[in-house]
């Protein structure tokens, strides 16, 4: 029996040692990556390290993957152009530290700590609301700004150092409710998934009902892992609403719209702004999504955005860059990461290595024209998006088309 104990101790000890080996290696990295600066380029400063904390596996990976790709694409572009000019007058390369949170708040928490160890100046991510809330205390404690791409309403107020670069439930429902007024749609049925996003949407619609903007004839939930939602659609149809409003993200939305079409598609159907990557959505739904309408970020209908619009040239540029790099259509999800990353980069020019100053620069109220919308972060508003950052589109002939 004694050997059991001795061995167990040895095992635990070895794990301890293996784990302890990490920190000694980690801080060494930035130093040795700071290769001797090319003499021709003049004095080059140490790279600015930025963390990318995204879910590349699990349910949130559809959002996390384009986030990572976008940040990598633009970090490379910036470095190819010589880097960021810091307040010290030197040029600094951007160095990314990527950590896969695997859609688990606990792993995201450890990931945030790992990024703090690596002395990142700011973090792009996390992907999900639960993870954003979990890393918020660490952001506050370490004074590192976190540019969350998560849509939850609680995100922007979770920490003084947390910013939100996605439209939340309130933005989305307000845009759709505004459209309903013009279409004389008064009675709606609500289908929502049982995630924080889906339930948040339902709660926003309840608020609109209490204000007298709409009447709700049916409310039904479904899990994002459900293989079929026809039952709820049948039940919703039976209450004879003017429209069915579905508050969910891409994959469940594809299930819902297919079920809806197969039940005859009798009632007009509306989705949330959660369907941020139209191409896979259309590939999945085929013609069954025709007729569906939803509010969405302008990047999806970039060609239909009028030329005078303040976002137009940036949208066109991002669209071009993304297509050139990845040969697919861009999504709003990548756009959220662009907005977070580029606002950090812009702030680095004045704040440099000072993370508190970086945060203050980001929330200084200077408008930022982004992919998601025109952001104005101030101290009390870390969402910073106006309601007109979404436009209404209709899916026609298997394409997202702007409703004019």
């Amino acid at each position: 029996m004694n050997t059991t104990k001795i061995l167990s101790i040895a095992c635990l000890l070895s794990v301890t040692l293996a784990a302890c080996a990490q920190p000694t290696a980690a801080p060494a990295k930035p130093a040795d990556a700071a290769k001797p600066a090319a003499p021709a380029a003049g004095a080059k400063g140490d790279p600015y390290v930025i963390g990318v904390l995204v879910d590349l596996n699990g349910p949130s990976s559809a959002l996390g993957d384009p986030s990572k790709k976008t940040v990598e694409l633009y970090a490379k572009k910036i470095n190819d152009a010589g880097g960021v000019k810091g307040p010290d007058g030197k040029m600094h390369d951007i160095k990314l530290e990527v950590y896969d949170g695997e859609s688990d708040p606990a792993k995201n928490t450890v990931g945030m700590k790992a990024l703090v160890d690596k002395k990142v100046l700011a973090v792009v991510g996390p992907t999900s609301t639960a993870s954003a809330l979990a890393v918020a205390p660490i952001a506050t404690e370490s004074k590192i700004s976190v540019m969350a791409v998560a849509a939850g309403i609680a995100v922007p107020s979770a920490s003084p150092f947390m910013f939100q670069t996605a439209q939340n439930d309130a933005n989305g429902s307000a845009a759709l409710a505004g459209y309903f007024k013009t279409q004389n749609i008064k009675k709606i049925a609500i289908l929502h998934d049982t995630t924080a996003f889906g339930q948040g949407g339902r709660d926003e619609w309840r608020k609109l009902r209490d204000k007298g903007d709409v009447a709700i004839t049916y409310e039904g939930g479904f899990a994002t892992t459900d293989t079929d939602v026809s039952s709820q659609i049948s039940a919703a149809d039976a209450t004879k609403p003017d429209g069915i409003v579905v508050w969910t993200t891409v994959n469940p939305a594809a299930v819902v719209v297919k079920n809806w079409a197969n039940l005859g598609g009798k009632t007009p159907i509306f989705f949330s702004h959660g369907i941020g990557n139209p191409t896979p959505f259309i590939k999945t739904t085929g013609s069954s999504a025709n007729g569906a309408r939803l509010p969405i970020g302008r990047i999806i209908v970039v060609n239909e955005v009028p030329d005078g619009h303040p976002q137009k040239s940036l949208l066109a540029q991002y669209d071009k860059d993304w297509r050139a790099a990845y040969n697919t259509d861009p999504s709003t999800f990548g756009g959220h990461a662009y907005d977070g990353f580029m606002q950090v980069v812009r702030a680095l020019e004045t704040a440099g290595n000072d993370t508190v100053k970086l945060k203050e620069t980001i929330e200084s109220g200077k408008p930022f024209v982004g992919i998601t919308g025109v952001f104005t972060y101030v101290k009390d508003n870390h969402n910073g998006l106006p309601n007109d950052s979404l436009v209404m589109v209709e899916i026609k002939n298997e394409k997202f088309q702007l409703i004019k």
Partner: protein
Amino acid sequence: MDIFLATLPQLIVLGISLGAIYALIALGFVVIYSVSNVINLAQGEFLMIGALVFVAVVDAATKTTGAGLAVLVGLLVAIIVTGGVGALSYALAFRPAIERRASVQTLIIISMGVSIVLRAFGNLVWGVDPTSTPAFLPGRTLREAGMTNVIGDSLRLGGVALQTQSIWIIFALIVTVTGLFVFFNRTMTGRALRACAMNPDSARLMGVPLSKMSLIAFALSAAIAALAGAIIAPMQPVLYTMGLGLGLRGFVSAIMGGIANPVGAIWGGLLLGIIEAVVGGLPQMDLPGLGKVNPASLREAIAFVILLAVLIIRRLRGANGLGGKRFGL
């Protein structure tokens, strides 16, 4: 409540077609467990690989061969490739462990490892975005052929909608069950497999190579999973995470039916499908502690409460599971 009763026939039809999918997945669990005593939690990932391969082949072949032939080619390739993946995972992961006399729990963990690797592989090769294929028999084709009671991709039968794809699912289930029956009763290999299922020790004494039989069982059940994956590809977003939810439902159906009992697995699948569909259509209710809740939001929980109640009540009466005999096709 009246509204609910009016939609009940529709819900039951839905439940049967859902249940048929679960039953098909559950059969894969049964085949592997019967022969090699492994509860293979990677069954859902076999389905995912099958579905992704199927979509890839159909996408590539449609342009050259036309939709109908593409589906056939896709099915064939998906079944063969996934069968190979199943055999490979047995040979690389399970056989070495079984040879070292691994326990049932150890084998479950190995199947977890296999599912982690396959999911990561699916993510790496196909990315994180969903995909899908058109229905095997698109509603448009039927309408062009002059059928009037077709809406979307579903048939209207007296006020009840039935997806054309559901007919294929039920057809596939019947074909699979018949195929298994013929295989296990009429062929030498099948009889040897059955012998392993009934009594591994005497099968070994009789000279049946257990390892080879297990390899066949893995290939066969991966192939069944691929068939299920291909057939639901037009109804579901196809992507690397799809195996989790479907695998879980197949697992529950299989265990409900007695894990080594194919007929039980079919009953288990149908029961689960019908419960899910009917609960999804229930009207809003007052639930103690939760206030006004739509039961649809609690579908998973309610399904499990019913399943567990069935199991416990039957247990109190002295029976286990849904009854039926061990591998008695």
